[in-house]
């Protein structure tokens, strides 16, 4: 049962990491425009990030 004292903190850390990533993804518009890459083929030039 001692293994729990190791596994639980690990799961907490992993969870915090996952939650942090999720929050980052939401804040950075990762869920904003899910079709963006499908539309990208219409773009002629790349790098122009106006």
């Amino acid at each position: 049962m001692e293994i729990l004292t190791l596994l639980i903190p690990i799961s907490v850390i992993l969870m915090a990491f996952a939650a942090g990533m999720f929050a980052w993804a939401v804040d950075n518009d990762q869920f904003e425009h899910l079709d963006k890459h499908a539309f990208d083929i219409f773009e002629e030039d790349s790098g122009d990030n106006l």
Partner: protein
Amino acid sequence: MTVSAISVQDMHCAVCAQKVRRSLATLCSIKNAHINLVRRQIYIEHQDNQSVLDVLAAIEAAGFTPTLAELSNHDQEQRQLLKRLGIAGLAAMQVMMVAIALYAGAMDRMAPDVQRLLHFTSLLFATPVICYAAVPFFRGALAGLKKRSLTMDLPVATALTMAFAISLHATVSGQGEVYFDSVVMFTFLLLCARYINTRLQRRFDLSSKLLSALPQRAWRVKNHEHQSVALQALNPGDRIWVPEGAQIPVDGTAEHDPSNTPILIDEAMLTGESEWVSKPSQAALYAGTLNAGRGFFMRASSRVEQSRIVSISRLADKTELSHTRVSQFSDKIAGVFIPAVLTLAGVTFVVWRFVEPANAVTAALSVLVVSCPCALSLATPAALTAAMTRLRQLGVVLTNSLVLERALTIDRIYIDKTGTLTHPEPSIQSTRTLTETFSQSQCLAMAADLQRYTSHPIARAFRPYQSQTDQPSTLTKVTVYSGQGVEGFTPENHRLRVGSAAFVGLAEESARNLNHRWVYLALDQQPIAQFELSNAIRPDAVAAIQALQGLGIQPIMLSGDHPQRCAETADALGIEFLAQQSPETKLAAIRREQALGGHVLMVGDGINDIPVLAGADVSAAVVEATELVKSKADVLLLNAKLTPLAQLFHIAHRTHQVTRQNLLWAAAYNLTAIPLAAAGFMPPWIAALGMATSSVLVMINSSRLLKGTLNFDAPPLSQGRNQASKSNESERFTNDLGRNNGSDAPAPDAKTVRGLI
């Protein structure tokens, strides 16, 4: 540095977005621009207001129509909600995993220290859920309390607080049961429902409203100099130049013109009628209407804030305020239920203290947990969400979930004629050649080639017949005669004219049918073809009307149009009508109906319909309606079809049934479980299990709404499958809205109605 939102409604695809992006690339006054194709908006970071105007001008120069949009914080809220949902979901997974170990341990005599460790673990994961994810419910409950009304958020917040507090106490003291699993699952499920709801409404949160109905700039004439000025800068008395095809910026009067040619105004957006109005000099002109004829000078008579279009919208706001509030059924229940549960828990505690003090806390707790209004508070939202999802697939978007409740009482539907029952723009109904020399398609191609030089609504009817290749027109010396027609010369120097009968040298043919108008094509002096244009009735209008009548709802046509024209359309559809109605009389008609105890749904498209839409119990707008109308309507019909209206009523009835079943089940569960819990027969963990099961049953029952529709193939309506050509507009909307959208709807159709009129 400020951020402005510019809405470009005609930016449909990535190619358009690319064009807009290029047009902005040359501007150095803006720091950053972000194009959101889904919302058709551009967000720019800029220093001063001048740069916004530059951006508007640049986008306009690229061939789009930009309007300033108010920056809504909707996006921000949506993001917040998604984050809360994500956190709740992640935490729920962890807590449930631990909970399963605890359930197993409860049966298998888990070591107390391990159990304690697991309790603390659950506490660790449940804390962010209560402190962060569940915040909207606490806020909602507080806001409700401040307004002295008991909303469904209150029992949710109470249950969450109680369950968490008790679990916290049990964890810290090491005695009693924990309910972290209930707390997180409950929060997660409710947040899911809320997120889906706001997402559905998101696309239609059109905050730009008024601004998008008016042009951004106007040409002010001072000392013979044309200046482009912002609309707000115009003052009464200013002399304004209104170019051909432009919108009139403010209310005012037409200036006297020496040539005495009348001014033609398309007032469709104000009155809904497609016929152009010919205005003499000094006649009143209204902001937002379109100059369909030659360019002219006008004098502003008021500031833009006092124009008619703004006052109509204010009238609508006032009507909205006087709306009878329909309170949600679940809120009514909450008002009774919450005090009852709290009292009952209190009574249980007091009674048990005298009978068996050791059981007092457990029993009171069981009562609170078992009566946790999970199922009860999910009963309505789950059914509504399922119904709204289904309706969206059918091309109906509800901006207000109360519509489903109100739709049950509707017994009359008022439908605007032009633009709602009929297509908003005229189309070519038939082509008749007047000589043997040219075929119909040749004539159409020639006329279309000429018509590309103007942007009149009539010219737009010819657009589908323009040659698809981009090769330049071979016509030379093209002249547009405002209000009459277009003239051009072929390479062989033949004069080609397209326009009214008089323009091609024919006597005006007596109108056989008032809903139609004729356009002629002439080569040199010889008229060679006649085109018949009309606003065709929507292909599915008959099916929709019959379906509604089948549901016991009486559709009535409302129109500002001439009685005879209305009669033709109404006869074709088999409905009653009220002709020559103004916004005021339309509203009065609805008020009369409501005074007699009737409930009215209004479907419209023009700005003139807004007061009526706001006065009706439920308002609906077709997809082609002006943005202002769409932003005010409760229901949006996205497929350019009317049959989804009948679906709305069908689904509203089914939703009502499902909600009632849900509530009945939830109430029955609570009524049996609460006495058992109060009597001490139910340990809290069984209570929690029962609560979870009841919620799941409610969800499963609600999901039945995701399937099934009104069957239009019933005997009186079986008129074959859909052959209606969907307009590009409707395609575009359905594509934007979702991939699985609309296409699976049984698309009923009447036989082509064109032949009937």
